[in-house]
């Protein structure tokens, strides 16, 4: 165990040194989901380095020992077909490693797809994050406000992002809070995140979406719940309500700075939660729940119809 951790720490140290001593975003998690992913990454880097080192050691040994210049002129290599024990080791050890990593991977899948660990008892804050060429629109249906290209979130509270797109497929990614997920124009995907620490984080679209892709970023500010509530209050006092015609203008391709509105575009331009079949609302909600394998079971029309 001690050996393993020494190796992992030295691996991390190496990575940091190479990166100029600043911790890499993905390996500097500020939330439980990103932490789980960072742990998986470090664990796999550790195991994988052992494999690489073993292969290299065997290779160097063989090259050194059996190089032609090191052997007598009359040496004729033997004819060897195979060896049962060698093959058992060469198949068995990889199977064990892959089985162990599969076990870790499957467990992590269920963890990152559900409410973050330690936050199960709290009501999640639902935020609709939609992309258009080349902007991000964030709707807070419960609070009744909307922002463009920046995101304020409370710390120590689970956040449930509902992702979709008004154009090409994009991918919503805040590396320090958790991994990315696609936003598509014909369905809504759900991403569960939470922030343990207050701070400023980088967020971006990670999936290529055309000309303005490189600048398709947004700022994330995590703050205590009280500050978050103050911010909501402030928005109500200072921001204008969003109108349908104004929103249509925002959807035009191009870059915008940060903007704030009261009300959300979900009222006149709802998320494509019911796009694929035109049956009754209840049926749709059910099929949507199943297709996303979500763990929570609240009624989504509550938010979108707010």
């Amino acid at each position, binding site marked *: 165990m001690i050996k393993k951790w020494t190796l992992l720490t030295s691996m991390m140290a190496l*990575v940091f040194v190479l990166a100029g001593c600043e911790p890499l975003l993905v390996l500097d998690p500020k939330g439980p989901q990103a932490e789980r*992913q960072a742990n998986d*990454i470090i664990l796999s880097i550790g195991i994988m380095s052992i494999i690489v080192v073993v292969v290299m050691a065997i290779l160097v040994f063989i090259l050194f020992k059996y190089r032609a210049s090191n052997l007598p002129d009359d040496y004729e290599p033997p004819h060897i077909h195979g060896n049962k024990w060698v093959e058992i080791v060469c198949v068995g050890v990889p199977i064990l490693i892959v089985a162990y990593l*599969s076990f870790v*991977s499957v467990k992590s*899948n269920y963890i990152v797809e559900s409410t973050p660990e330690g936050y199960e008892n709290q009501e999640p804050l639902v935020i609709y994050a939609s992309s258009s060429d080349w902007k991000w629109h964030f709707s807070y249906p419960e609070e009744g406000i909307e922002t463009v290209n920046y995101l304020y979130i409370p710390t120590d509270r689970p956040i449930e992002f509902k992702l979709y797109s008004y154009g090409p497929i994009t*991918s919503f990614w805040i590396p320090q809070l958790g991994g990315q997920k696609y936003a*598509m124009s014909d369905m809504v995907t759900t991403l569960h995140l939470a922030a343990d620490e207050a701070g400023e984080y*980088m967020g971006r679209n990670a999936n*290529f979406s055309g000309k303005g892709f490189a600048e398709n970023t947004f700022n994330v500010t995590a703050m205590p719940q009280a500050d978050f509530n103050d911010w909501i209050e402030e928005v109500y006092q200072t921001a204008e309500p969003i109108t349908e015609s104004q929103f249509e203008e925002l959807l035009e391709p191009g870059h915008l700075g940060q903007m704030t509105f009261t009300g959300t575009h979900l009222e006149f331009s709802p998320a494509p939660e019911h796009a694929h079949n035109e049956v009754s609302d209840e049926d749709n909600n059910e099929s949507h729940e199943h297709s996303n394998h979500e763990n929570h079971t609240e009624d989504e029309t509550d938010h979108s119809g707010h």
Partner: protein
Amino acid sequence: MEFFERFAIPHPSPAIYASMVAIVLVSIGIVAGLTYFKKWGYLWREWLTTVDHKKIGIMYLVSALLMLFRGGADAIMMRAQLSAPDMKLLDAQHYNEIFTTHGVVMIIFMAMPFIFAFMNLIVPLQIGARDVAFPRLNALSFWLFFAGAMLFNISFVIGGSPDAGWTSYFPLAGNDFSESVGTNYYMLAIQISGIGSLMTGINMCTTILKMRAPGMTLMKMPMFTWSAFIANVIIVFAFPVLTVALIMGTTDRLFATNFFTTSNGGMDMLWANFFWIWGHPEVYILILPAFGLYSEIISTFSRRNLYGYSSMVWSMVLISLLSFLVWTHHFFTMGQGALTNSIFSITTMAIAVPTGVKIFNWLFTMWKGKIRFTVPMLYSIGFIPLFTIGGVTGVMLAMSAADYQYHNTMFLVAHFHNTIIPGVVFAMLAGLTFYWPKFFGFMLNEKIGKVTFWLLTVGFVLAFFPMYITGLDGQARRMYTYSEATGFGALNMLSFVGAALMAIGFVTIVYNVYYSFKNSSRDIGSDPWDARSLEWATHTPVPEYNFARTPQISSSETFWDSKKNGHVLFKGEIEEIHMPNNSGVPFVMGIIFFIAGFSFIFALWVPAVIGLIGIFICMAMRSFEKDHGRHISVKEIKETEEKLGGAK
């Protein structure tokens, strides 16, 4: 006027105008040269109409090398643009076109013809056949590949290149978001060369199953032939998916069918599924023949038989099956939920097991051997640790929860280049150096070859290893620029230096060919490497009919056994040999496909329909043609054999 506007490039730049001038000048130069040296007849008789697998292989080889430089030029422009923050070398549109064409050219028009070159050059010789099963179809395959490649390559000077990424995800690749004809080029050019690949797949499977020399059971086939066989089986199953997906994409763009649009019932992720059901097996189509080449080279230069022959075969069979069960790992982040991701996470990681078996088998082939550090062997030795790193990062990516952090980042870019460059490109260069004397009659210079190897290896490590780090630091792939504040600058500069070293490395290959052509000895015999398999048992240069007498096979290393253990390869008298006739039809069909494809791209319906009719006329003509080939007389064979150094 509108008619001509369609052909104009939407985003011209001085570099593109310069390329236009260069293309025109080179074309004029080629035509003038051919006329001046009176080589038109020679070109037509010996190359354009040939059905000889060796000549077709050489044409594939030359095309692949040319495309390597085209794709490499794209690569160096990309790395230059990213070498420093806020670089202004290329604009977003130009950069998007360049990484799209880099991907397509390298996979479809460089790696594919490269492996087809080796399949054509070596497989018939390794199994003791006179040609492939359908020689004329083989020529057609080549000309379709060539037509597709040329069509794709004119895109940047006529109408604009595709700019939606080599994966061309819809709806970005649809008419709403990609307005220029670029994506039409993508759809039609890949379609035409893809049909050629599918036909090669059928042709090679038939050849390997039906035309092996007497005594060569399946488990006595040389390893390269095995790898070619399995790759071609994958081609036969995977390419039809691509064909259908491209047809659907084409009709979406040309006839507004809405398969992949997001309105009127289209599903954007359907394209992604189709693309990767072809695309993931495709990477094994490329890597398995490379594994085959490494097996031949490592056992030759270790002077030992291949360790674990049957486990090598079974691991390839297993890889081919698993390759069809992993496509969803390309979009773990699509939101299909934990269960689906878990299944595909496990199937993906499972591929590591048979691949690991192969790595260990190569190591144990060198064990107790007598290792010579020739250029092909250096590539094979460099491949083992580099590919292992690429492989284990693949396992890391296969952990789907962690993949949420790697997806679409430079980490992924580093991973797949880490498998494809030491895996495929190194193998092709190793094979090129290894088989060069067999097909051109002289050796490539070893010293220059070693310089090339080191430039490429050091360049590769510098170019791609920093990407693992920038990926984990949040650099997404396909970003044409980044700000100073991100801190990606230094590592990207390192990548650029590496890419520049690789570029120099590739130029030394050209110099090596030129230098060796002038200086190398032509007196090298037919077996300069002291090799082990059947392709080295015939003369150099290889006569048209490959073997004067059909070889008798006793083991997977039958030529080695004939040299060391007294096995008699060639028995009996020389008999008349039946060979196919040359034909100009495949070449003509290539031209017609090119014209029809171009017309479809620009929605010029009259020439498009005429072209389609022309294709059917060529096919109909073939079905009514009575061509039974010709016979080479015993006298003629004996004369050739004597000229090449005595009958064997």
